[in-house]
């Protein structure tokens, strides 16, 4: 199990965007959703999630709204804005490109050079 601190910088934002893009979620839900969609491979330090949420909201990529959770508790729900969706698409493309490139690079064998 990896904590996010070991991942590349900026990855947390991307993961939050992805998680929130799948429907409105509260902070705890986003945390669980990230664990779920990363097939439990990524563990996020709980306290670091919230600054990321505030940063993304300040950048206008997500919005928040107070609502009621499945357990009938008052909770704040986040969801992507239009520019959030755009950003997610772009970042995803870049990430895919990047990971493919790195993958190719690391797969390289001596005879291919």
């Amino acid at each position, binding site marked *: 199990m990896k904590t996010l601190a070991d991942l590349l910088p900026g990855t947390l934002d991307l993961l939050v965007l992805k998680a929130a893009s799948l429907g409105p979620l509260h902070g*705890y839900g986003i945390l669980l959703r990230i664990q779920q969609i990363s097939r439990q491979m990524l563990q996020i330090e*709980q306290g670091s999630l919230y*600054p990321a949420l505030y940063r993304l909201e300040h950048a*206008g990529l997500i*919005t928040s709204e107070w609502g009621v959770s499945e357990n009938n508790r008052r*909770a704040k729900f986040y969801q992507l804005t239009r520019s959030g969706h755009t950003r997610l698409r772009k970042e995803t493309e870049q990430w895919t490109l990047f990971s493919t490139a790195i993958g190719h690079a690391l797969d390289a064998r001596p005879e291919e050079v």
Partner: protein
Amino acid sequence: MPDRLKALARMLLRRSRLGSDMDDEMGFHIAEYRDDLIRSGVPQAEAARRARQEFGNIGRTKEDCREAGGFSMFDEFVRNVTYALRQLRRAPGFALSAILTLGLCIGANTAVFSVINATLLRPVPYPQPDRLVTIVREMRRGGDLVSTSGQDGYAWEALKDARSFQVAAIGGTSGVNLGIGNGALYVQQQRVSAGYFRVLGVPLARGREFDESEDRPGGPPAVILSYGLWQRVFHGDASIVGRTVLLRGAPFVVVGIADETFRPRGLVDLWTPLMPSTKGEGQGLNYDLIARLRSDTTWAQASAEAQTRGIAAFADRKIPSTISARMVLAPFDRDNRAALRNRLLLLSAAVVIVLLIGCVNIASLKLARGAARRREMGTRIALGGGTASLLRQLITESLVLGAAGGAVGLGLGYIAIDALQAVVVRYGIWQELRLDSHVLLATLFLSLLVSVLFGLAPAFQATGVDIRAALLEGGSLGVAGERSHWLRHTLVLAEVALSLVLLVGAGLLIRTLLYLQHRDPGFDGTNVVAASASLEDARYNESDSVNRLYRESLDAIRATPGVEAAAVGLHVPYQRWLNDGVRIAGNSSSPIEDYGTALNYVTPGYFEVLRIPVREGRVFDERDAANSVPVAVVSATFVNKYLKGRDPLTCALGSGPLTLQIVGVVGDLQQQPGLMRSGPIALEPAMYVPATQFSSAGFRMAHTWYSPSWVVRATGGRAQIARTIEKAIAAVDPQLPVATVHSMTDERDAALQSERINAWLLGILAALALSLALVGIYGIAANAVAERTREFGIRMALGSSTARLMWDAVAPGMLLSAAGVTIGGLLAAASVGVLKGLLYGVRPFDESTFLVMAGVLIGVSGIASLIAALGVARLAPANVLRQA
């Protein structure tokens, strides 16, 4: 971007409950996690502990969130504002003087801008103002413009059926009597042709405007009431339309009520049909023609048609062949703007200079404080406060000052606008002065601008703080630091120079006013009161009835104890008189052109009341009756101009069908010139005729423009004399209200109103500039004393004389003001040209004004420096040395 803005707006809204929101959100997180842990089999107490622990430090997380959410920048701003306010509270003297200075400067600019806004920027308040024009007559000799004027009846005849525009004519506005119950009310009447409201494009509130049948000589008398008069006098009674009112001594049918929002030029209570014709007033250039271009015509087409039709109009008139006359279309508010533009530009230049001086002053004050705060700045930088955050704080301080000054300025501007309203009404502006969004925006912009202006210098200085030096100097080891002074000295120099420019301008305008006020008036106005009444009245259509009124009322006045002399004249001195052309019998040099003269009809005794000196022959008396030989009295200037080298008493003048024998020559009177533009008051050729010999037609025409005045010399003061006149007139005619009561000084002030306003406005601004400059000079000297206390103390202890030390303290300020005066003198010399049209009796480059103002400036800056230097005399060397 919009998402970002929305996020920002939400952030500001949410900021206040941010803390509790974050608690709620994180509390929820921990609670959910705890429940999940319990569900997975962890004991309750253990679950709660783990949930909290794994979340990490809540306080730090909240702090991180604050920063990540952009709340921290706003927090810093709030902190800076709070800090700035605390700084101001700590230096109340500085805060008060800075805010007042700013308030005065911004207030002056707000007021002047509101006038510019109302007169030059806002269009006239009628629909499609760009399609509205006035049609003026241009006379040229060769290529030179001789005159631009209104029109006569022939021009009206020629233009009224134009195809490319609808045209309407406007006569003058004059006071008339409106019968109310047993008495009468003096109201302002404007005479307009049919189609006036249609051309302006404003509908009436009720009824209709004049039709063609009413707007021709002999047509049925009709009147349109202003909304204000309708409310005031008729209490908004709608049934008044169609009924008759007693106006000008005769019944008039009310045909309409003007709209509440309609703003004519100047004050108008009611309108009557102009009845334009080529007879009477239509023979002179007494009509203003306004027109609205039809929607399918261009300006060029309309202009061409006006010119073509003009040729027919000019053919009917005897225009000398050397003069070429032309009909010209001009923008509707041409006169109005031209009259105000130069004056306003001058005024705005003056207020901008004052504002600059104000900014310079505050900047210099802040520099002085900056020096005092060097230690604070040094400490903050040493503790790790970045230059950027320091700058942000300094700018915030300036903005807070600017905002406070702007608020005070807005308040002062509001008061000033009220005062200016009364002044500008005289120029017949259409728009009310008010603090509208334009003015508010301008004030806001100005406040921001000045904040930046005066904030720049200290910020500039602060970023260059040498930490070590600042910390050391701030202690007791410092000696005078010369390095930072050049900036402050330059600012004060600029202040002095700009003040001198305003002082010279104000000096020239004040001298103009004094010159005009002290010109020999040509009469003695002490204990004289003039009361006017409108005789544009059906009961006074005949010479007999007018003269009976004069005779009977004057008899009653003369019978009152304390009255020394009384008479009636169409005009009194300092007014603008009726113009007339006369022929001079036996003068063959120029048989066609009339000689222009100011004309006044008077009753016997007029010259005695005003003590106008009789130079030759006699003035009028009871011999000059309606049926006796027609006579005239002329002024000295008339003789000098038109009767050079002849014995005036042998000359006769041709006026209309009459030949008048000159029986006397009297001294000149100051009056507002109607013939030539020669300043606000001048000595004009003047001719007097006896009221008894004035024709009925002459009375009718003169009284449509002017209200005659009863002039009375008596003891007992103005109010008592006024009562005497009112009682005497009311005894003869209870329906004839006295319209105005003026002393001769009032008349003079009215004639010189523009000059007085110029002198006062610029004088006030110059005084403001001077006092601001003085504060600057005082600051320099006081600062020099404060900084060199140690040095002075040591020198004093070593035996230096107090005078010598004081001189050292005064010298920098004096040197600065001397240099400032030199530069200011050059600036003033370069810019006084703009005053050219406003000066009388003094040249723009009047050495004495320049010298006196330079002397005043140097003198008072000397005094200011000296006051600051007195601190030196109070120094006790022993104390100073001990403190070191």
